[in-house]
């Protein structure tokens, strides 16, 4: 085991996969010489050269489409989209190209590409650089969507994503890059599609993604002092969902709270809520509670931004409402 920062864990994953498979290459804005604005790709150009680590012009639309077809024709590209707020520029390539080809062309092609991006608020980056558009990509059938919440998962899931024959959207979080955590030594490849129970509890199941997992853990501490034991489940993969883990937890606690940093209305939490209703309705002793960013643009000034984003306090309130 080594204690690594989340960004370092990602860097290791990329380095290992590029060493292992010469078909893996990287492209994105500022990833080469500069090593990436969050330093995830530092030193990789030095090791692997300019053909395999490419600094690109500002052309998200074409670059995403190019990544798709490069993946179709013998290489395994990993594209970095600097901010999740730029995902709308990539949506044609994802919804009209990447996600359809394996099905529309009856399995003639595989598309092993990874689109890495980071989102989330709390850094004062403003309305156009703070969003979590998880729901935009999770909505599209044919894509896998992954969101690691720890350095171990960052490394394990990125390696898994690169090896996956299907398109994977890899959602990082700007406030997690500096998080430190234990990362297993050796060939550490995680399983896409498996959730993890980070804290067991008998009273309420909290299903969270990305940075919200940590807010949920904080909420659990506060709730414990009140005699409410929350079970914290880190989904890790947003699509495909680990349905059996979700159902088992709700059957155990009879209460569910879903937390995602995207907007609440039509958000990712709304789908989780519907899934829980579909598969565990009769286990519910209360409606599913959703915690998300308030349905408005994310403002800049600190008190405004903090009021809009979900946090441990709102998660704890939701848990209290559920068990009331």
């Amino acid at each position, binding site marked *: 085991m080594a204690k690594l920062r989340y960004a370092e864990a990602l860097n290791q994953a990329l380095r290992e996969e590029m060493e292992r498979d010469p078909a893996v290459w990287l492209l994105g804005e500022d990833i080469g010489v500069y090593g990436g604005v969050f330093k995830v790709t530092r030193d990789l150009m030095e090791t692997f050269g300019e053909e395999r680590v490419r600094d690109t012009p500002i052309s998200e639309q074409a670059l995403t489409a190019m990544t798709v077809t490069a993946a179709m024709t013998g290489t395994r590209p990993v594209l970095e989209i600097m901010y999740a707020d730029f995902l709308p520029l990539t949506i044609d390539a994802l919804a009209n190209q990447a996600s359809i080809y394996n099905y529309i062309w009856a399995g003639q092609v595989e598309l092993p590409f990874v689109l890495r991006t980071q989102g989330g608020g709390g850094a004062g980056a403003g309305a156009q650089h703070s969003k979590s558009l998880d729901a935009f990509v999770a909505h599209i059938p044919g894509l896998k969507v992954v969101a690691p919440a720890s350095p171990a998962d960052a490394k394990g899931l990125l390696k898994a994503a690169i090896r996956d024959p299907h398109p994977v959207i890899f959602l990082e979080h700007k406030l997690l890059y500096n998080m430190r955590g234990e990362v297993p030594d050796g060939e550490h490849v995680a399983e896409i599609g498996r959730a993890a129970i980070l804290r067991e509890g008998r009273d309420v199941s909290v299903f969270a993604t990305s940075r919200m997992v940590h807010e949920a853990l904080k909420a659990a501490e506060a709730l414990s002092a009140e005699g409410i034991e929350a079970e914290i489940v880190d989904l890790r993969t947003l699509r495909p969902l680990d349905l059996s883990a979700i159902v088992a937890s709700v059957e155990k606690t009879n209460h569910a709270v879903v937390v995602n940093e995207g907007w609440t209305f039509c958000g990712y939490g709304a789908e989780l809520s519907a899934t829980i209703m579909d598969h565990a309705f*009769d286990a519910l002793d209360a409606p599913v509670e959703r915690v998300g960013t308030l349905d408005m643009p994310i403002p800049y000034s600190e008190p405004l931004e903090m009021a809009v984003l979900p946090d441990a306090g709102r998660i704890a309130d939701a848990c209290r*409402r559920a068990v*009331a």
Partner: protein
Amino acid sequence: MARDVTITGAGGEYMDSVTVVEWCAGVGDTVRAGDTIAVVETAKAASDVEAPCDGTLAEIVADVGDELEIGAVLGRIDDGTGDAEEAPAASAAPADPPPEAAAAPDRRVREGRVVASPLARRIAAQEGVDLTTVEGTGPRGRIKRRDVERALREAPAVARQAVPEGRGAGRLFVQTRQEGGPDPVVFLHGFAADLAVWNGLLAKLGPSVSTIGVDLPGHGRSPRLKAMGSPAALADAVAETLLAEGMSRCHIVGHSLGGAVALALADSGALAVRSLTLLAPAGLGPEIDGAVLQGLARATRIESLGAWLGALFATPASVPEGYAQAVMRRRGDDALRDYQAALAGELFPDGTQGFDMRPALERFAGPVRLIWGESDRILPIRQTRGLAPHVALHRVAQVGHMPQIERPDLVARLIGETVRSAGGPR
């Protein structure tokens, strides 16, 4: 009765608090409605406080100089009408119904629909808890799991409550679901059962049917009335209860002994019975498995009860999961078991049906349908031979003595058809 004198936002003036400046009447003084009895002051001006009614100033709560918020009580006036809050509704009745029954009327009137979480419903259905009798402590009065579990814990205490006896004087315990339909359908259970046996079936009847389940004397939560040893006596007790509920016309669904009671009730003319749906009714032949009846009545342990319950169904494997436990929970009372064993002895002497309901069946003028399981081991289906031709008979394969549990969809459908075939209200 003491009437409060309160500070309101008098005269449309915005006030947040007032100070008492003066009392114009003393304790014991007679006052008339509209008299100024006190003066209060706000930041702006002084206001008079008037007596809300005629009476005597009984109490001064706020003294001169006290500061009060809007809505606070200044004093009290005795209006001379005496206390209204004493004496419960059942004042002179010798039968003292258990608290659940007294509380039930409020819920019946208030709710067309029980609000309960999916989990609470699941547990209630499994355990045979009637949700209309459960108090919800969740948000907005929602019934949650803890409320159902509390009801389960408290139920035996209810059954053990002293229930006085008396012929005809006791109101039977009933449970109404009031949704649509002018003539309700009355459900009469069989021996050693109670109205909870209909729960699964009622859920399938649809919103246009209003229903009333009755616990027969000495069953469920009804009092242990004396001299109930015939279907006619039981029918009288049921009729008296229904009439007291304000009913004059109804349809009846009766199972086993309840079927015989239904026939007796229709025959008595006490109410206008518009149709009968009878599930393996007693009284059509001499044979009855008296051993099962006594075994059921006397069982004190889940193991013995379970064994006897198995005989009620087509096969022991048809007994629903949790059924024995649910039944056991409702039979936790020695007095109830003794009563029922004695009743069985009177109704079914020597393991034989001591009454003949065929004439009543033949006399019934409305639509009548029999539903009988071909694998019924308590009342054999051959008892249906030679029935009057206007009686419809539905023979159901692979069903025992409990068609309302073994084939609830079918039974619900047939009840609907019978009720509708009686035509609209007259």
